[in-house]
């Protein structure tokens, strides 16, 4: 560890504003009727919050002291023309079948495709700027509905400054067969702020894949702060896959919450392999009786990566069930944190909550922290959890080698086997293949 001079700061409200902070100003907030009030609220929250430090429980294991707050200018409109273009392979369908729609969000611009059939059924799948012009009322209704900009510095930041984002709206009882796909492409030394708003109306269903990615660009710094707000209304069904493969120079923060209403279902899949540092808050609110939510997470870190996933399963109504499995592998000097909580509200009887986090540490210098938690305020519930951190063992590797499989392939097989329970939960061949490619890639260097 480097020796650092000790600075004693007396903590007062004034001192907060003197602490390290981003240089953004109110004048940089994009004008626009639709979200004006929301953004004003977010700006106030942004000013009130200082950058989180490790004295806060949620940030105890994720230290932002080396975050270069002055290094992230906002991209100008059409900035993408001078930046690396989106990787072709990211545009391929991941969920089964051809896309019903695809949106590419680039710095300073977006392109949108939606099948005429879906548009005719009233499906809205568009980028944030278009939504601000064409669907201001809907947008104003959804923004801040599940993620409050006041939740934290980065929620406020993304809420106030989002340049890019997605509005997805599925009308009542519409069953969308073809999956929808969006890509947030964030090259360059910029701040990318994104806001995803998803409303699946009563009895509707859809599969939606969103990925955030950027090329590795050593020597620069990239910031992403995002908000994901999801509402799955009564009897509706959403399968939502979120992948992040940010370059190794990216600082990535997100606040995400899904509200699942009566008898509705959410199948939420996360895949994370990128970024220098990630802090992600994902919350599942089972708000209506009989609501079900499943959260499946895959992560694989190497080098100096630091990925921190904070999950919360809130059982707010009776007869709700949640099932969370996060599995991660670590190489190099990387670090992962998973901190999970199942909360059962008073009166949320007959709930069934499960959470498990399993880690495979492939290198002695890597470290995984796994912190499960339960807070149960009802008496007739079933909640279980498990957390493990293990290493590659010698005996399985010897066994595989004794059958002619070389060391590196044997390791890969064991790691794939470790992740298999996650693969089993993913209903899309394309996503499974993507994860397998992630493994192959991470294991090969």
């Amino acid at each position: 560890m480097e020796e650092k001079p000790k600075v004693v700061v007396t903590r007062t409200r004034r001192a907060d504003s003197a602490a390290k902070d981003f240089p953004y100003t109110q004048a940089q907030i994009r004008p626009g009727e639709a979200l004006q009030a929301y953004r004003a609220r977010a700006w106030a929250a942004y000013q009130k919050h200082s950058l989180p430090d490790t004295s806060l429980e949620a940030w105890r294991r994720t230290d932002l002291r080396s975050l270069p707050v002055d290094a992230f200018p906002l991209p100008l409109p059409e900035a993408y023309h001078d930046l690396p273009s989106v990787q072709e392979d990211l545009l391929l369908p991941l969920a089964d079948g051809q896309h019903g729609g695809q949106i590419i969000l680039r710095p300073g611009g977006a392109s949108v495709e939606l099948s005429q059939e879906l548009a005719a059924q009233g499906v809205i799948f568009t980028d944030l700027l278009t939504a601000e012009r064409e669907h201001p009322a809907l947008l104003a209704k959804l923004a801040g509905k599940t993620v409050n900009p006041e939740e934290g510095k980065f929620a406020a930041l993304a809420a106030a400054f989002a340049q890019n984002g997605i509005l997805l709206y599925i009308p009542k009882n519409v069953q969308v067969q073809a999956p929808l796909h969006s890509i947030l492409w964030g090259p360059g030394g910029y701040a990318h702020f994104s806001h995803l708003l998803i409303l699946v109306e009563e009895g509707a269903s859809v599969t939606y894949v969103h990925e955030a990615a950027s090329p590795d660009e050593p020597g620069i710094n990239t910031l992403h702060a995002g908000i994901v707000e999801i509402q799955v209304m009564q009897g509706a069904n959403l399968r939502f896959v979120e992948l992040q493969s940010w370059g190794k120079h990216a600082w990535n923060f997100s606040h995400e919450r899904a509200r699942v209403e009566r008898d509705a279902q959410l199948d939420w899949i996360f895949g994370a392999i990128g970024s220098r540092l990630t802090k992600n808050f994902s919350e599942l609110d089972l708000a209506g009786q009989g609501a079900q939510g499943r959260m499946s997470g895959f992560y694989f870190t190497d080098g100096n990566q630091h990925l921190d996933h904070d999950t919360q399963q809130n059982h707010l109504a009776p007869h709700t069930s949640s099932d969370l499995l996060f599995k991660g592998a670590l190489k190099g000097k990387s670090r992962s944190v998973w901190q999970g909580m199942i909360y059962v509200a008073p009166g949320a009887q007959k709930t069934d909550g499960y959470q498990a986090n399993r880690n495979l540490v492939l290198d002695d210098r890597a470290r995984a922290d796994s912190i499960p938690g339960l807070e149960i305020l009802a008496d007739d519930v079933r909640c279980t959890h498990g957390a493990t951190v293990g290493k590659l063992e010698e005996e399985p590797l010897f066994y595989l080698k004794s059958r002619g499989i070389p060391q590196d392939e044997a390791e890969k097989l064991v790691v794939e086997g470790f992740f298999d329970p996650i693969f089993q939960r993913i209903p899309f061949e394309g996503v499974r293949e993507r994860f397998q490619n992630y493994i192959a890639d991470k294991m090969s260097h």
Partner: protein
Amino acid sequence: MSILEIKNLHVGIDGKEIVKGLNLTINSGEVHAIMGPNGTGKSTLSYALMGHPSYEVTEGEVWFKGQNILDLEPDERSRLGMFLAFQYPVAIPGVTVANFLRSAINARRRAENPEDKGVSIPEFRKMLKEKMSMLKMDPAFAGRYLNDGFSGGEKKRAEILQMAVLQPSIAILDETDSGLDIDALRIVSEGVNTLMNEEMGVLVITHYQRLLNYIKPHFVHVMMGGRIVESGGPDLALQLEEHGYDWVREKYEAAE
């Protein structure tokens, strides 16, 4: 022609010598059995032959297919044609029997030709189905995670299935009869006998004579104190069954 030639082999684990100068030659077409009481180094010998990293060979040579294999990695030994049926096969959660076997076959093909695209799925399925039916295994078995939750009998059957798929030129069976009921023992033994051929050698390591009723050895050796102390024909196994090991022990200790 000799397939496997072990010369003055010394093996230790954690600095303690277990195998203390073992000599054995196996010719093609021969089945050898090594018998002996517990703790005489039988399993140490099998692990050392396969190259387990915890077992340190301190002296001696092991010649297989014209080379001293002691410097080879376990996977190289396997691809050269050595096979060890483990006494305690380890579970590999998340890796199915089929996926594992396909990886093992493809590793062989790729070692021959780095450009090889691997065995085709239909060809692999057909081959696997044949081998499994020979061992009277339920086809659903191929989809189970390797050794994960297998009964003792299923584990041993899975070992012989691997042998059938990999077709080694020397097979070492380490206590393959332990944990098997009589029906399973018969199936497993028939499997080994079917796979045996004139180009191949088998080394059966066993505590009991029972297995040798099914897999008939040409030569029987008694191992004690890390060495082979007595060798003979199939009769030796029967003699041990009847009289135990005490007479060998007395003879061996007298000679010490």
